[in-house]
């Protein structure tokens, strides 16, 4: 479909441009052939508008002869020829229209347009056609660029989506096997405990599957999932694991990316509690700070335990997810001392 004809506004603008040209031609006719204004107007406006439609044909020519440096000479030849022919046909029409007008109003003594005006009109016709060709080329190129841009943008969105999916925390198989081992151990000694553990595990799996498929969940849901996870780990670590929650109630309905906290809590267990003979307390805090929210997970560490490569990777993933979701709006800080490890996340507070 022709890009100008397809859009009402563009077509309107195009016609207005040609109407202005029509008035210029009117003035020209008045000056050169001493037409009276009304006659000049009724002569030039219809012929200009007709030529406007002829000009639209340039689009199809441009499509048929795409811009190509190698064929520049051929292009010039084609367009010179076409513009001369178009202009010539137009002049014939002009002459006929002039004759017709003369028949109707009989106001003008002169039966023919002056040669001078014909020559000028012919020249104008050629130039206008070439102008129209240039405008169409510009339009086609512009459209190409914007289409490429749109495609690139769409691809970027897709890539971002895929990245978020791949960075999303997955259930740690070690956690599953350890939990199953706890259940296996409990079945003989403490059947009630074994059932409780099974239910906790089922609950956690169901929740994390549900939440992972969403784009945003509330901080309350995220904390609940974390506490569910920690309840399971409490069975495994017994008195070695304590958890302290210090959650701001103004935060629980805010939106966060799903499972953004989970890797931090898992790290706190894996690289903190699991390395400590006596264990310790994990502290989970949320705090609303005006238009932002601060979420932190803190755990004790064994100062003699070597830093494992896995910690950094998990944290890097969280950082990447924050950047993909919030760009510069989010931040993650790590505060590490000999005996404590704390991760703080700052997010924009997104209400429902």
């Amino acid at each position, binding site marked *: 479909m022709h890009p100008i004809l397809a859009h009402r506004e563009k077509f309107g603008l195009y016609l207005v441009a040609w109407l202005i040209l029509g008035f210029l031609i009117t003035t020209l006719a008045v000056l050169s052939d001493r037409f009276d204004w009304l006659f000049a107007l009724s002569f030039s406006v219809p012929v200009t508008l007709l030529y406007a439609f002829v000009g639209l044909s340039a689009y199809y020519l441009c499509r048929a002869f795409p811009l190509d440096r190698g064929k520049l000479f051929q292009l010039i030849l084609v367009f010179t020829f076409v513009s001369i022919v178009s202009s010539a046909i137009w002049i014939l029409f002009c002459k006929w229209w002039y004759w017709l007008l003369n028949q109707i109003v009989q106001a003008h003594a002169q039966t023919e347009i002056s040669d001078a005006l014909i020559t000028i009109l012919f020249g104008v016709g050629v130039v206008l056609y070439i102008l129209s060709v240039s405008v169409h080329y510009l339009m086609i190129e512009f459209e190409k660029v914007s289409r490429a841009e749109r495609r690139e943008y769409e691809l970027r969105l897709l890539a971002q989506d895929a990245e978020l999916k791949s960075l999303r925390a997955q259930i740690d198989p070690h956690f599953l096997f350890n939990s199953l081992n706890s259940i296996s151990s409990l079945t003989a000694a403490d059947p009630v405990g074994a059932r409780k553990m099974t239910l906790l595990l089922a609950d956690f799996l169901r929740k994390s599957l549900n939440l992972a498929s969403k784009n945003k969940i509330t901080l309350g849901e995220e904390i609940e999932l974390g506490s569910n996870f920690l309840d399971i780990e409490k*069975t495994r670590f017994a008195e070695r694991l304590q958890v302290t929650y210090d959650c701001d109630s103004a935060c629980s309905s805010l939106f966060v990316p799903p499972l953004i906290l989970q890797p931090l809590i898992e790290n706190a267990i894996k690289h903190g509690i699991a390395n400590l003979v006596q264990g310790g307390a994990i502290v989970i805090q949320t705090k609303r700070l005006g238009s932002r929210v601060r979420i932190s997970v803190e755990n004790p560490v064994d100062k*003699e335990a070597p830093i494992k490569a896995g910690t950094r990777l998990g944290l890097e993933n969280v950082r990447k997810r924050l950047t993909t979701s919030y760009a510069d709006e989010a931040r993650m800080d790590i505060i590490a001392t000999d005996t404590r490890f704390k991760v703080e996340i700052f997010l924009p507070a997104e209400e429902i």
Partner: protein
Amino acid sequence: MTKKKVVRALIVDDESLSRQVIREYLGSHPEIEILGECANGFDAVKEITEQNPDLVFLDIQMPKLNGFEVLALVDKNMSVIFITAFDHYALKAFDVHAIDYLLKPFSQQRFDEALERALRDISAKKHRDFHVAAAAAQPADRIQERVLVREGSQVHVLPAETIDYVEAQDDYIRIQAGGKSFLKQQRLSELEEALDHKKFVRIHRSYILNIDRMAKIELYAKDSRIVILKDGTKLNVSRSGYEKLRGLL
């Protein structure tokens, strides 16, 4: 009345539920005497050194020392069954001569199989040098960031950055760290291999130096230099050692 030899076993796992399963499974094996349970690597080294068990059920992932590190620190002839939920350790477990390798959770049947093997192994009295095998299996995957030294049943953990220098002494190495020195049965070349090569340089047949401790190098005689450490200690530098130092500085 019981002429049958009793096998003395130690259970090492940081999770009480895991120890409980082993205890439960051992319930149907009266020939096994449970010496005790350990919840971390330090205790394990202590118990193994003092009690001399025939069989150890050894968890790999533990606080303080992992299962491999425990083995590297004890030079006892015993049978080891590894227990873990992480199966990427399996190959390494056999590298250090483990009898078997149980993946959590495991059944009584699977446990009995492993135990059967262990009992056969114990009666065959095959000699196993865990100490060396485990030490060799350790550094393979990454730079060692700490050095473990056992003194009797006590274990010292020396973070690599606290080490000033290491000196070879006959079959031992003497590690100088934080104003104290520790003796360890290891070859200097083994330790050199395991430490971070950007930080630790073998400056001499008998010395590995932490380059952060170096104050200056002095020409001592023709073609012979000494390094003076920040605490004033002087160490000889060989010609190739000097080349290595120059390459790093």
